[in-house]
């Protein structure tokens, strides 16, 4: 299986390494050459320097025969556009896009884009964490 990861920061590089370790053919794309360092010295997958908005860069990364695309640059709007290009121009159904803004994530999800919103996840996780630590304390007080 072939995976393209666009935006090779903390999130992108870890996903790239994880899937490569599972035997996937992975190519990472980042504007900065220094992002290659995040993949580690023993990185054997592909790496393309360039902007994900540039379709020539996407083609060079092999998007035309990719099975999945993960878009995780640090810009929500950049991710939204690249995600839609991957989905609509290159027909990659399994395109997953990171969006930090829950409002935009919700709208684009309703339009058929597969989004992951770490902000919403953090809100849920933090809320759950608060609930699970407050309740026992209260029980303790009443006992």
């Amino acid at each position, binding site marked *: 299986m072939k995976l393209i990861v666009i935006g090779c920061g903390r999130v992108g590089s870890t996903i790239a390494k994880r899937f490569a370790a599972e035997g996937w053919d992975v190519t990472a794309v980042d504007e900065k050459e220094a992002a290659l360092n995040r993949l580690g010295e023993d990185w054997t997958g592909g790496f393309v320097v360039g902007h994900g*908005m*540039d*379709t020539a860069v996407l083609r060079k990364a092999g998007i035309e025969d990719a099975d999945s695309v993960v878009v995780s640059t640090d*810009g*929500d*709007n*950049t991710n*939204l*556009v690249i995600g*839609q*290009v991957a989905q*609509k*121009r290159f027909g990659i159904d399994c395109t997953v896009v990171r969006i930090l*803004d829950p*409002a*935009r994530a919700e*709208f684009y999800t309703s*339009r058929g884009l597969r989004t992951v919103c770490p902000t919403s996840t953090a809100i849920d996780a933090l809320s759950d964490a608060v609930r699970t630590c407050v309740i026992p304390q209260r029980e303790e007080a009443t006992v």
Partner: protein
Amino acid sequence: MYVLIAGGGKAGANVMRTLLRHGHEATIIEQDRDRYERLEAEFEHQAMNGDATELFVLEKAGIKRPPDLVLALTGDDEDNLVISQLAKEKYGVPKVIARVNDPRNQPHFDLLGISPTVCATSSILGLVEHEVPEHDLIHLLELRKENLEIVEVQIDKSSPSAGKTVEKLRLPEGSRLISVMRDGKAEIAVGSTELQPGDQVLAILQPGKEDELRQILLKK
């Protein structure tokens, strides 16, 4: 008319000024604090500080009314694309005009159905091409809604079409010659019009047929 402008640079501020002078109602959104303060000094409450790709900012600016027109004029193409999509598809704004900063991003606007678009760089390039005497095929006008475009072709001595009449040319399907400009005079192209070296020919065609047309008219 109520117009919402995203991006308060030179383009946005000038359009804002003109709209207000013509008696329209308008709001301009600018993200950069310094730039916003200059806009606020001039446009007062009609200027807003914020990121126009944030839904709550757009809503505060009145996008739910909705405006008759939204102009996405920021210096960032991704932002303009997202603003346009939100305006059209989430809030039902009837008309959206987007600025394309980098002509290489034009296909993304087309793919996502954002039209009309304005690209200063492409306009300048078009004019430059027009000034170059030895151009072969240049794009004059794109009719996006109709999915047609008008191009200009310069016939030269070695062109296979030189000396042939229009009816003898095997023009690609989905294309037609409009007119022939010779010695400063334009004539409508008909079947019996004979092409000559030096002619400037206008043609209308479906996008993507340029190479076929070039082949028939120009290729040695």
